[in-house]
């Protein structure tokens, strides 16, 4: 009986011995820490907005934050002019207004030089703005909540492959407390023919008697670059936690590192 117990213990121990283990006998790939540039210019705001950070290797000490590069020289060149975009320590963004007059179809070049001499570059063509934007709004009220169904239409430009993004966001103020909610920027692709493109979204406003609610709702329809279209589509479908999804190469148009340089030609409308 004792022998049987020993045999069974060995068998059982062997069967359950860790099914999870550290892989040690294969060579891990060499990992290069890369600089990441995310930079955007939007004509409607006449403003640059972006960040420069470092990637974190996946192995080794866990890091929740990305190292922010504060002392990079960031310039955008086009139309014979150069903008320098400087770092704002409060927001930890590179930001600033542009002195360049952006023209549709012209190429604009981003140049980032780090203190260690590393150079990252990118370029983009300035896109068309959406034409003849119109909106229809239907609303239904249920108790204290009013739902708005908003349909946005605009003209596509014939003969040119155009890409668009539609965003909306609302700022509410409840007794002095402000907050924001809105949509993930949905992207659309033109059909290369003259036709009306449409996009729909739903929002709501809450109004309870006796309480003080106020809302500002904005709709932004932008002409965007193809790179941004691909990137935004990627973000829309990005499910890093989905075990069934194949690994994805994140779109990047930055040479010498990672990231995305986007130019947007937006039309911003505030809903009443």
């Amino acid at each position: 009986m004792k022998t049987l117990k020993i045999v069974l213990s060995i068998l059982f121990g062997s069967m359950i011995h860790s099914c999870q283990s550290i892989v040690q006998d294969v060579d891990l790939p060499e990992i290069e820490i890369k600089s990441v540039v995310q930079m955007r210019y939007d004509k409607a705001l006449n403003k640059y907005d972006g960040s420069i950070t470092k990637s974190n290797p996946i192995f080794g000490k866990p890091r929740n934050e990305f190292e922010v590069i504060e002392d990079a020289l960031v310039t955008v060149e086009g139309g014979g002019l150069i903008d320098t975009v400087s770092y704002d320590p409060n927001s930890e963004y590179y930001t600033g207004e542009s002195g360049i007059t952006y023209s549709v179809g012209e190429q604009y070049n981003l140049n980032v030089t780090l203190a260690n001499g590393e150079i990252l570059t990118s370029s983009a063509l300035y896109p068309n703005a959406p034409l003849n934007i119109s909106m229809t709004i239907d609303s239904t009220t249920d108790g204290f909540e009013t739902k708005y169904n908003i349909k946005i239409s605009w003209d596509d430009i014939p003969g040119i492959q155009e890409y668009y993004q539609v965003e909306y966001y609302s700022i509410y103020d409840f007794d002095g407390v402000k907050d924001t909610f809105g949509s993930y920027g949905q992207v659309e692709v033109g059909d290369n023919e003259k036709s009306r493109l449409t996009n729909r979204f739903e929002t709501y406003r809450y109004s309870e008697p006796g309480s003080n609610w106020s809302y500002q709702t904005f709709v932004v329809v932008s002409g965007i670059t193809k790179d941004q279209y691909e990137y935004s589509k990627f973000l829309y479908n990005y499910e890093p936690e989905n075990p069934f999804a194949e690994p994805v190469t994140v779109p990047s148009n930055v040479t010498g590192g990672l990231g995305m340089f986007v130019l947007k030609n937006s039309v911003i409308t505030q809903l009443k």
Partner: protein
Amino acid sequence: MRFKLIIGLLVMFLSIKCFSQNVTLSGFINEAGSKEALIAVTVYSNDGVYGTTSNDYGFYSLTVPKGTYNFVYIIVGYEQKVISVTLDSNRTQNVLLTALGTQLGATEIDLQKREKESEKVQMSSVDIPIKQIKEIPALFGEKDVLKVIQLLPGVQSGSEGQSGLYVRGGGPDQNLIILDGATVYNAQHLFGFFSLFNGDALRSVELIKGGFPARYGGRLSSVIDMNMKDGNKEKTTGELGIGLISSKGLLEGPINKGKGSFIISGRRTYIDVLTQPIILAASNGNSSGGYFFYDLNAKANYTLTDKDKIYLSGYFGRDKFYLNEKYTFEDQKSEFNTSFGWGNATGTLRWNHIINPKLFLNTSLIYSTYDLGINAKEKEQDTTLFELRYGSGIRDYTAKQDFDWYANNKHKVKFGYAFTHHKFTPSAVVLKDDYDSSLVDQETIFNAVETGIYIEDEVKFTSKFKGLLGFRLSSFHVKGENYIKPEPRIALAYKVSTNTSVKLSFATMNQYIHLLSNSGVGLPTDLWVPATKNVKPQSSQQIAAGVARDFDKPKLTLTIEGYYKEMNNIIAYKEGASFLQIEAAVDGEEAPENSWENNVTNGNGVSYGMEFLLQKKEGKFTGWAGYTLSWTKHTFDSINLGKTFYARYDRRHDISVVMQYQLKKNVTLSANWVYGTGNAITLPISTYRLDDHNTFRNQYGYWANGQEYTARNDFRMRAYHRADIGVQIKKEKKYGTRTIEFSAYNLYSRQNPFYYFIGPEDQFEPNSNQVLKQVSLFPFLPSISWSYKFR
């Protein structure tokens, strides 16, 4: 009408050919005792000039000049029979062959072909002896046909314990798995850890990896053709088996005094029965759940006349997970029931008719279906609050006729046609939600028609030079789109010496259905979808060359083959897409943005390599050793920046050694060892910041972590290797033979990788280093099984 006329004329022509100076000897060859049909028995005149082999139904036909002959009927495992006949007119000669030895140790008789490899024109094919399938040690002792096929060169398994097949660089969807003529779409139980086929009810299993005969079509990479036993025509008998996770039974016997026979075989797992009391006890009786699968094979045949036989056979199998929970809160009773099930069903009605001694016709009506269902229901008191039903599947109806025309001593011709109606249901969703009164009821259906017409001629150019020349014309019609594709096939064999031949083959294949899979492990959620206007059919061209040599002492067979295969229009999910995002499409309408058509991308693949197989099929010591050296690469415009990458199942080296040794009359030892290069996977290497670039960052800022990966499949997992052993001990009992088997899977408990992930080195330490970890599934697993075969 025109078609009937052509067939009529053809039959008339073939019949007229019989009225020549030659006479034809024909008939059926069966096993003495059970009367099971014997496939591929070699029949030849003793001068060696005339010869043929029996077909899948045991029918043979041999046309010779008038005269007196001694005909030899020979097949391995049976006593050779010589019959002297004087032929001055056509003659029917049915033959019974007696199995070699009926005593212990020889009760399992192979009913399969045993033609010498060097005699065969067909290359890249292997017949798997059912006896060996039953002796090879298996996971939990569950005998598994597909896992034995994985042990052959040119065939790789996907991951640890999986029964998916990757043949010469093709995916699991590129295998045509046929059971009694019916296509089986998902041949896996328990997410691929077991296959549908345990071998008990099977008569023959043949794997073809290249040089495909024209009678097969519809898949790129392999054909696995399985036939069920007919059943014992002489007496009623049976078999019972009890294993660690399942039990099985088989019953066979005669119908109407041997005019027909039947066989029924079933298997069911009982993990759920064993775990149920534990779940109930742990939940105070509020929860029940479990998993089980079952299979049922049944077949009956009946001889109507000397020229007519009918067969009815079917398979039905299902997997099911279920979980039922009950809650009571303040006298409110709530229930939540969920289940997840999938299964196959096939049915085949066949009619054999001997039109004349040279012309054999088989007419088949076939039904095949695979479906997946997910159900969830929440009830409060007796009111349904929420109900979800999700389903996907494919259903086929097929009609086909296959003719075997034994034209003369130089030509053995097969021709026929098949017509299949496919109904694809990639998704069907019914969602009722009483919380917000919503109801979703969507079903995506595609109807398609696939046809194939073929002719193949096994031609003997000279006594040393043979060929199998074939042509298939396939077509596919779906949503107003028509594809018609010619498929030339050619195989040549030249005998350079008595026991050695060199072989060459070329085959073009087309595949009109795709399996959408992004798990790489063959989940039942993978979707079968048709080729459409946007997603073109897959096609392949494969060329193979090799040498086959049969050795007399010891009796060994060596085959060495090289192959090169190109695959076009293979599909994959676009980067980042998954079945979870698939949006329903309506038949006849444009596909929506997130339909499966818009989430897949077409590409090309190439696979090439060398395969070595040394087999010993006879004697006390049997088995084989196989080695494959291969490369498989894919290129997709929109994956990996358009650069070519290795397929996940690319495997540079693959070795398998399978051995059985009959130690005593009643004791058989078995062992196998496998080795394979690790799977190619894509590994994350760094994380970095992603901004969404929305216009109002200040008001609605957002950024997420992106992952940077190695190039697609640029990282190799650890190599896979494993050894299994087993011993079968038989004992004669009063009513039959009892067999007890002890086996051990993964003898030296190798931790083979199932999947990799990044995790903390010490999971209880928050700042522990992130390291690469692997999950392994099956360490050393002993098992025991018992079976009893009634006499």
